[in-house]
């Protein structure tokens, strides 16, 4: 197929050659970070795989027997909720959390099949906590870049408060949908027990010392809105 459009685009490529300069230092820096914990899991003995498969079948059978997500919710004492509840939690959490000046709450978008799905109670609040956290990180990174000490201090205090009051770390080996009991009344987010929370704290310590690298990365990757 002759395609003059593609040819013209190729000729107009503004960066025709990729820079292939070696970046050994960057490689070393990245691989010094915590890696993907799932990779180690794949190396575990086969017996554990078998156990996981059996467990998966049990869970699948339970889901099939329950026949509807709502039934599962009743079985588990109402800890699973449908999307309107999650949305309501998200809206309610906005009244309990603050965003930096100039930021607004991102729209909570459900996937098209959300009507048929359930989520853990508190997930809406967790979504709001994360949105607040990322907004404050962006605000802090900007404050450091523009040497606005007052704004930086405000962001630091807000993020410290979020980590102190609205953040939990799941115990080691806890399931992915672990939630604290009793369920907190304030909105909360849960970190897995994989070093992520300590990584975040370390990023804030760096930012407090004037190094915005990590919070800027987090901001770039997670920017709300």
């Amino acid at each position: 197929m002759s395609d003059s459009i593609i040819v013209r685009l190729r000729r107009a490529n503004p960066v025709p050659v990729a820079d292939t300069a070696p970046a050994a230092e960057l490689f070393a820096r990245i691989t010094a970070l915590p890696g993907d914990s799932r990779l180690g899991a794949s190396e575990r003995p086969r017996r554990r795989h078998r156990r996981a498969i059996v467990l998966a079948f049990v869970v699948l059978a339970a889901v099939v027997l329950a026949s509807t997500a709502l039934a599962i919710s009743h079985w588990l004492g109402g800890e699973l909720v449908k999307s309107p509840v999650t949305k309501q939690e998200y809206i309610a959490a906005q009244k309990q959390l603050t965003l930096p000046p100039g930021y607004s709450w991102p729209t909570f978008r459900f996937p098209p099949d959300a009507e048929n799905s359930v989520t853990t109670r508190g997930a809406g609040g967790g979504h709001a906590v994360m949105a607040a956290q990322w907004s404050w990180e962006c605000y802090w990174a900007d404050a450091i870049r523009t040497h606005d000490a007052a704004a930086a201090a405000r962001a630091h205090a807000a993020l410290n408060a979020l980590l102190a009051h609205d953040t939990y770390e799941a115990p080691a080996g806890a399931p992915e949908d672990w939630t604290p009991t009793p369920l907190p009344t304030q909105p909360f987010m849960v970190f897995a027990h994989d070093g992520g929370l300590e990584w975040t704290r370390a990023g804030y310590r760096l930012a407090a010392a004037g190094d915005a690298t990590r919070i800027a990365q987090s901001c770039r990757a997670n920017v709300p809105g």
Partner: protein
Amino acid sequence: MTATSDRSAAEERFRPVFAHLGAVAAYARRRGSRDADAVAAEVMTIAWRRLSDVPQDDPRPWLYATARNLVRADARRSARVAAHGAEGPGDLAAPPEMPELDPALADALRSLSRLDREALLLVAWEDLTPTQAARSLGINATAFRVRLLRARRRLRARLGNASNMGSHDETTNLDLETT
């Protein structure tokens, strides 16, 4: 298996992914990122932390998809910051632009939908096959081919008649439908 050997196995697995650093930086630069090297470094950091999600046989579609999200997120953030006056007028951020293009082509590209534009550019600038490009956009290959065909037609229509595109002899055979 020890933690040390786990780590070195992970590093070995990451090395061929990291080899695309330059290509990812070039991708970000082509999509108008103001800090393409930082975006590429961030993409690689994400790839390292989510290494089991990165296809080992062909990581580029995954890497470009991640870079695309970062560039767009950065552009949204810059636009919002600019709108709230947190930066001076010199820093006013625009959505990603096609840098250093002839104005007619840039305008025509900008008139396309984001997905149409990206479909064209993944093939023309990133040298992906339609199958790879489809993977990067999260759509199936057939849908991608249809989209690419329409995008080419739309761009051609925007640019005017075929005489503006150079003579037929200058074209190259691109076997886009069979890859």
